[in-house]
């Protein structure tokens, strides 16, 4: 454990000392949230404009309102949810993806600069090297994610939180998501030597994983073939947990909440196990 935390400590020290990195990582989610989330007012489609409302007979207004409400609930989980809040929560999770896809990069750099050899000649498990980096990446992702959440609140996200315990569980799921994604990315990129490959892998994973999650649109709006993908995607589960605990308030579905959390925990465990296993086998100085 000491060796894992030593490696994690090194990574985090380096990160804290480069504030530009921290700020730059926030730019993309800010754009998605601030520009796309604000401009593309999907929930606005389901509200009836005032002047139209005035021309309708009073008895039908109630029917129309109920109709639109039920559509909003079906798609966005709660009648009060506006699209900006919906996307802001999505971005709170997507930033975890954006940070995690680079988790393998530091191994490539360490290899290039010879530091990896230093780690490899030390009497430590190879998996400790990888887990130290996964945990560091997860802490980074968690902090960045909290910052995106705060940005969302500052920009007018409408909170309707469930009980503190459920909120805490949902926030913890951010960390589970980070461990899942960072471990997977490291497992994929373990043997890649140059940072160009890491960039390519990052690009390859970023968009598909974002678009097959419920970050930008609800599961119900997806075509049938896409829904299974979204259901496997760990991002979806963190997003649903966060939306449940932060936006839906009392209308939160406890059974679904528990399922999402269990799914993420299992996913994180498997991914970390896979990463460790591959590290013990394949993380070497060998050409």
């Amino acid at each position, binding site marked *: 454990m*000491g*060796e894992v*935390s*030593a*490696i994690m*400590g*090194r990574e985090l*020290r*380096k990160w804290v*000392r*480069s504030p530009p990195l921290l700020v730059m990582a926030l730019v993309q989610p800010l754009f998605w949230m601030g520009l796309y989330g604000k401009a593309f007012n999907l929930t606005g489609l389901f509200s009836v404009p005032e002047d139209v409302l005035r021309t309708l007979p009073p008895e039908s207004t109630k029917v129309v309102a109920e109709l639109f409400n039920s559509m909003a609930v079906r798609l966005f989980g709660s009648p009060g949810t506006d699209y900006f809040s919906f996307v802001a929560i999505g971005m709170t999770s997507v930033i975890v993806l954006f940070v995690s896809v680079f988790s393998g990069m530091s191994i490539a750099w360490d290899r290039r*600069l*010879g*530091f990896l*050899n*230093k*780690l*490899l*000649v*030390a*009497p*430590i498990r190879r998996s400790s090297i990888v887990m130290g980096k996964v945990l560091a990446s997860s802490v980074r992702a968690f902090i960045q994610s909290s910052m995106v959440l705060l940005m969302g609140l500052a920009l007018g996200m409408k909170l309707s939180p469930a009980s503190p315990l459920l909120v805490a569980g949902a926030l913890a799921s951010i960390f589970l998501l980070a461990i899942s994604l960072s471990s997977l990315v490291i497992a994929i990129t373990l043997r890649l030597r140059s940072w160009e490959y890491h960039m390519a892998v990052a690009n390859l994973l970023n968009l598909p994983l974002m678009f097959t999650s419920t970050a930008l649109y609800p599961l119900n709006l997806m075509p049938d073939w896409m829904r299974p993908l979204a259901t496997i995607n760990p991002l979806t589960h963190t997003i649903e947990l966060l939306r449940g605990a932060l936006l839906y308030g009392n209308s939160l579905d406890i059974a679904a909440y528990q399922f999402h959390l269990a799914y993420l925990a299992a996913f994180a465990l498997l991914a970390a196990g896979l990463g460790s296993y591959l590290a013990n086998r394949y993380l*070497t*100085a*060998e*050409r």
Partner: protein
Amino acid sequence: MRAIEAEGLRKVFGRVVALDGVSFTVEEGEVFGLLGPNGAGKTTTISILTTLIRPTSGSARVWGYDVRTETSKVRSVIGLVPQDLTVDDELTGLENLRLMAALYHVPKDVAERRIEEVLELVDLKEAAGRRVETYSGGMRKRLELAAALVHRPKVLFLDEPTLGLDVQTRAHIWDYIRRLVREEQLTVLMTTHYMDEADANCDRIAVIDRGRIMAIGTPRELKVKHGSDVIELEVQGDGFDLQNLVKGVEGVTDVRVSGNRISVRVVRGEEVLPELMRRMISSGLSVSRIEMRRPTLDEVFIALTGRSIREEQGSWEEVFRQSMNVRRVRA
């Protein structure tokens, strides 16, 4: 006990045979040098002995542990100072050393005392709190040495410890290395392609070329065996057959005469010189100048491999590494 035993090490990378049956032993407390040009297999040998790569065939033990099967035991008794500067730029000297202590499971209180000690050894106490990016090349190398010693290794591996450093810094680093070896009672395996460094610092040397060991011995043994002393004399007087005068002397291997100068290659100069002088004087020649040169390891290397070690310099690999080092030092 033998600190290092290598037996028939072979390493093949794809089609390239990097090591072709390397065997040698290093005794406890010895400073052993692997001398050879770039690409000779020095770093590959170190990589195998430090468990970084596995030999294609052959076996090796370090401090009694098998480098293939007892990797973690080997790792805990060795220290490695690699060719490149690998201390972390963005951390302070102290943080680098603490990281190493943690990686070697040195208990915290022990580590703090030990870190003080190694910082003292390499004179980096004042700079320890600064980030490594502010260090000079020589300071980084010293920190690198300190980092390799935090866990009190038994065997220290130095891969080209002075590569990319200027001449003064080189001499300085060697002072530190000698001090460390003395005070820490280390066994050292080092590689170098600087002849003078090997000559001055190693108890024994293995000359390695193209993946094979060409000769092993103390610098003196190698010079006696594979190099020869050269005696140069300048004589006054005419009509003497210098060639014949010298030829019969025991130990002379080659004679060259040009004008009144004569250059003689001999096996043991200190024994041959008096005899040469006696002959010259008894035949009435007056000697106006004498010079005797001892062989250098350069000559040994040429004698063993048929080419100079310097010819290999400037390979792309070295140019690349040096430029990397320079860039890191500047950054």
